[in-house]
């Protein structure tokens, strides 16, 4: 036997030495297939594609090193221990020793995931880069019904909810949200954290159905890694803005299903480290207490206490200097331009939510863009009767009682404003109207030939208008809204006029070219009679179109087969794209025609 024992028949090199099939791997690890899958999920091991599939195309191949990596994994040992433990429980149950069974059940060893997370994501940025799936899954499971037969635990769902809210609170607090999109599948959010673009999908706030063809254990396996991952990420993020991590949540707000709001408030109040803030806080507290009456004073919430406790040391002289420095530093560096823009979008907007609107997402989105938000409920920061409210989000057929001082808009307005980064005119979003189309912010119009919907053009004009003119004074914003509208419209007209002018110019140029061509041809014709050398030229100019077509073919003739096939494939895919585009344009034409006829 040599230094390293190689079993008989085992290959020395090549694909057969580097890869093993799944069955071989399982046999090597001496575990069951479900456990193998679970370990793969936890460790993030995926099958690989060897260049030569030595055992056939229908097999799944793993890298030998990956399997060795699993082989040395303490989790493997842990799962063996769990199995032994389960057997003990079973035995106790069989002997009707309920007490022992319960005690054993409590003492079931629990695998620790933190080390694996660190292994999989050595840097925080790595973790952020792959957070999309994690967030989507956690948000989905926050809305799934807990069922015994599917083994979906209530605690698990609560944990998911908690983590999701914490994440949202952080994003909103730091104004990192960039894009939102209400789709049929749910609401997409896109945030930018530490240079990583993170997109996640939250289902609509309705109960999810768990279909039978979905294998829940697999998803739970994923959750087993996603939950702690998000926990650690949240911790890191909260830590980075000097917040205590498992944040204290006002139980009343929780009961009101306004956790995000509660968390954001917690984050904000805890994160004001200057001296001024304390006085402000006291003032605001007084104000609030005046507004809300004695009721709130009686029920001094846990939150308030926590805030005060947190604030206390900042009043001590030693800590003061440090804190002020920090505050200065924070205000100066933290926000880049985009964040600032996001932060100030709803700066002068005070929004009240009606009962029927999706509160959870709006609680998240509006503060993320610097707006103030309230709702109908006990712990709401301001009541519906507040005169300073500028917008009320309403989603019903008709609004009964109206305050003249505010606009009644549909929830889509908020999302569209966020995507356009300007405050859009509200007249299209009035109560009872069908709002303008909600466009995806993820579509890139830069690609040539892509179809641009009308409303996208309108928004572009509005954006241009907002950029060109000096932003309206924040104080008089309310009054200015209508004039802004007018202005925007004016600009649209102007833009249209511009376009028309451009088109005219183009036409002119074309005409000129045509004339020149004609002239050339005439000259050519005259030359033909004159001399033979020129004949070739004219022939060429006449044959130009034909020649171009030939050119294309010619190049293809000389291409190697491989490239030619690639080119064909590209052409096909381009054609498919084009045809999709064409159908949309065709439909649009039809719609326009129908509209014209009607009008």
């Amino acid at each position, binding site marked *: 036997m040599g230094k390293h024992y190689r079993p008989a028949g085992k290959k020395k090199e090549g694909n057969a030495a580097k890869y093993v099939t799944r069955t071989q791997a399982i046999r090597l690890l001496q575990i069951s297939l479900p456990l193998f899958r679970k370990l793969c999920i936890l460790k993030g091991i995926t099958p690989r594609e060897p260049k030569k599939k030595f055992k056939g195309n229908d097999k799944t191949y793993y*890298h030998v090193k990956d399997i060795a990596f699993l082989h040395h994994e303490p989790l493997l040992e842990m799962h063996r221990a769990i199995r032994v433990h389960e057997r003990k429980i079973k035995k106790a149950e069989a002997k009707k020793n309920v007490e022992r069974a319960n005690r054993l059940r409590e003492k079931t060893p629990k695998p620790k995931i933190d080390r694996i997370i660190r292994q999989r994501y050595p840097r925080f940025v790595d973790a952020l880069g792959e957070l999309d799936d994690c967030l989507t899954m956690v948000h989905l499971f926050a809305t799934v019904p807990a069922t015994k037969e599917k083994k979906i635990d209530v605690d698990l769902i609560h944990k998911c909810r908690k983590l999701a809210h914490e994440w949202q609170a952080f994003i909103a607090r730091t104004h990192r949200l960039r894009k939102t999109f209400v789709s049929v599948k749910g609401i997409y959010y896109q945030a930018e954290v530490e240079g990583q673009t993170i997109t996640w999908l939250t289902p609509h706030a*309705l109960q*999810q159905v768990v279909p039978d063809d979905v294998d829940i254990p697999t998803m739970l396996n994923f959750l087993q890694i996603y939950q*702690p991952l998000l926990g650690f990420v949240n911790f890191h993020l909260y830590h980075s803005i000097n917040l205590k991590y498992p944040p204290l949540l006002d139980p009343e707000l929780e009961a009101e299903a306004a956790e995000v709001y509660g968390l954001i408030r917690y984050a904000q109040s805890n994160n004001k480290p200057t001296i001024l803030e304390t006085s402000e806080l006291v003032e605001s507290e007084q104000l609030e207490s005046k507004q809300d009456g004695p009721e709130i004073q009686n029920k001094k919430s846990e939150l308030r206490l926590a805030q005060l406790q947190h604030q206390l040391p900042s009043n001590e002289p030693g800590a003061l200097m440090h804190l002020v420095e920090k505050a200065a530093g924070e205000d100066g560096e933290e926000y880049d331009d985009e964040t600032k823009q996001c932060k100030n979008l709803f700066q002068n907007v005070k929004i009240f939510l009606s009962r029927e609107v999706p509160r959870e997402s709006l609680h998240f989105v509006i503060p993320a863009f610097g707006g103030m938000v309230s709702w109908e409920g006990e712990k709401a920061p301001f009541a519906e009767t507040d005169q300073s409210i500028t917008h009320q989000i309403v989603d019903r057929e008709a609004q009964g009682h109206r305050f003249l001082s505010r606009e009644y808009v549909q929830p889509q307005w908020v999302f569209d404003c966020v995507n356009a980064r300007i405050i859009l005119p509200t007249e299209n979003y009035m109560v009872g109207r069908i709002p303008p189309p909600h466009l995806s912010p993820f579509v890139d119009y830069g690609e040539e030939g892509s179809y641009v919907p009308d409303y996208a053009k309108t928004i572009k004009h509005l954006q241009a208008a907002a950029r060109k003119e000096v932003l309206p004074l924040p104080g008089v914003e309310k009054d200015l809204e209508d004039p802004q509208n007018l202005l925007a419209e004016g600009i649209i007209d102007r833009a249209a006029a511009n376009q028309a002018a451009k088109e005219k110019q183009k036409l002119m140029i074309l005409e000129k070219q045509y004339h020149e061509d004609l002239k050339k041809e005439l000259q050519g014709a005259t030359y033909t009679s004159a001399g033979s050398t020129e004949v070739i030229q004219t022939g060429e100019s006449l044959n130009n179109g034909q020649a171009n077509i030939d050119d294309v073919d010619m190049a293809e003739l*000389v291409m190697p087969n491989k490239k030619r096939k690639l080119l064909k494939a*590209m052409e096909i895919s381009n054609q498919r794209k084009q045809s999709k585009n064409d159908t949309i344009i065709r439909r649009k034409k039809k719609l326009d025609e129908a509209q014209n006829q009607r009008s």
Partner: protein
Amino acid sequence: MVELDNQKEEPIPSDYNEDSDDSDSTQHSDESDFEDSSADKDGDSSSGSSDSDSDSKSELEDGSPAQDNSGDSEDAESQDEDDVKSEGGSEGSDIHQEGVGGDESDSSEDEVAPRNTIGEVPLKWYEDEPHIGYDIKGKKIKKKEKEDKLGSFLANVDDSKNWRKIYDEYNDEVVELTKDEIKIVRKLMKNQAPHTDFDPYPTYVDWFKWDGAKHPLSNAPEPKRRFIPSKWEAKKVVQYVRAIRNGSITFDKPKEEDDAYLLWEDDSGLTEKANHLAYVPAPKQKLPGHDESYNPPLEYIPTQEEINSYQLMYEEDRPKFIPKRFTSMRSIPAYENAMKESFERCLDLYLCPRVRRKRLNIDPESLKPKLPNKKELKPYPITCYIEYKGHEGAVTSISVEASGQWMASGSSDGTVRVWEVETGRCLRRWEIGEAVNCVTWNPLPDIHILAVSVGQDVLLLNTGLGDEEEQQRIKELLLVDSPKASEETGKKAPSVSWLKDDKHDGIRLRHLKTVTSVEWHRKGDYFSTVMPAGESRSVLIHQLSKKLSQKLPFKLHGLAVRSTFHPSRSIFFICTKKTVRVYDLLKRKLIKTLYTGLKEASSIAVHPGGDNLIVGSKEGKLCWFDMDLSAKPYKTLKCHPKDINNVVFHRSYPLFASCSDDSTAYVFHGMVYSDLNQNPLIVPLEILRGHANSNGRGILDCKFHPRQPWLFTAGADKLIKLYCHY
């Protein structure tokens, strides 16, 4: 004795009933009366009802058979007995009342003295007697007449109360059980207390009332143990404390919540993954477009027709997501596939092998090779200059005279014509009478001989051009001593005979099989013919001056298609269907085999330099061989969609051309450099169109002008065209 028995019997039930209450008994008596009356109402048998109780009891108690004497005939008697019973009830009060005691049914039996007084004797004794026993007065009780079985069965069937009836053998009568009795039977069967009123779990009524009592029940002083800590407990506690201190008792640790902590405390230095294998992060999911919006622009929503048309598509082609429009956010329903899509994503994440694939985000135009500007490669044939009309059939072959002044053509209408190139005038015309396969002009400028292959013959024709001196030489050449020739051929090459052709003033070489092509050697003395069906003699080389023919001394693998001579050396090329075989004629050996990789080659041409050659094939491919480079094609061009009929090199310009059945001819620039390291440059230049397709055939032959960059094409549409460079 009977009496005795009767009396003996009586105490037993009385014992049994001793515990019974008065109230019960009275109650029972009422009930029994009631039963009687009900029985009367039934009118079935007045006596039966009264006795039923006793009978049922007897059955239940011991089931011992007892005979009764009462018969049907003695209804009157039975009435008497009723009386007797009632009397008994009043008179024998002791018995009666005690008897009623325990249970209704029990009592009813016992209080009524059984009609039969025989006592507990085996009923067998009375089997043969006409009576069953004696009543209380000592009279015989007669047996009832037995019904026939069928009658009784029918009666039973008709009677709805049949199931309650029991035959009492002792008293010889049928007893019907009352509802209460059945209840009792049922209760007994369930092992419950038989009496219906009996409550096994009565509510406890405390006889002592606590509320309102001022004084304790007991006046004893509070015991010491109530307020002094227990010594034994203290001892036990001490024991536990010690045990805990010693560590012999351990507690379960409190359940640990695995809380988050600062996992990535300092990761600035880390750049590499712990796993040294290449890690491929999962691709992110595709971001949604406008069509997934809850309120997409109207043009994104497919019409009903389009949605219906999706049903006709294959499942995999069908769009997975059909845009829908909701007019307000409140009307958005829950997305039913949310779980499923998430699950599918999970599957992708852990079951799909991840491969880094370069996404070719390039302009498809950039894939095409950069060709040199065509203008720099001029001159080459571009436009049709002259059309030569005159043939009445497809022109199968053309050939240009060495000087370039004359052009000969052969057609399927059986004529060979000679044209003046520049004017398009038809100079001469031979009627051969058979479809012409191939026409070739002798390459020497002073020997104006045409070789024409017609069917199995090859004709050598004198065109009559040139001055007299030349004509003299040609005539000498074409002079054949026919018998001698035949002798000679008979010896050496019996496959070919050199004959004199008087009609056309030339030589006729008769072959065994159809000759498809004739090719001259550059010196104009030798020429080769190819007979594809000729097997070992498929390629022959003829010498004009000696009028000799010989077959090639080589074995051919495959079907010969064409042959050609090397332009400067004594090398001979034979193109078979799949390969090109190169022979050295002087050394008489095979030099090289070139593998075309084609299915069926159709034509071959050798570059004037001699090191490169092109092969055209019936699948429309064109192979360029660099013989110094390899035995495989340097470049394969797939240009024609149909069969290539001929390929040809220009003698002086770097041009080559191919013509095909798709009625096009391609002109290429094919530059061969003298530097051996530099690969030949091949640039497609021009597609020459203009010929019409007839019977699926397009251009049958093409030839270059020997001096000018002009191309002649012969089409199946009876035309010959000349393409010029201007």
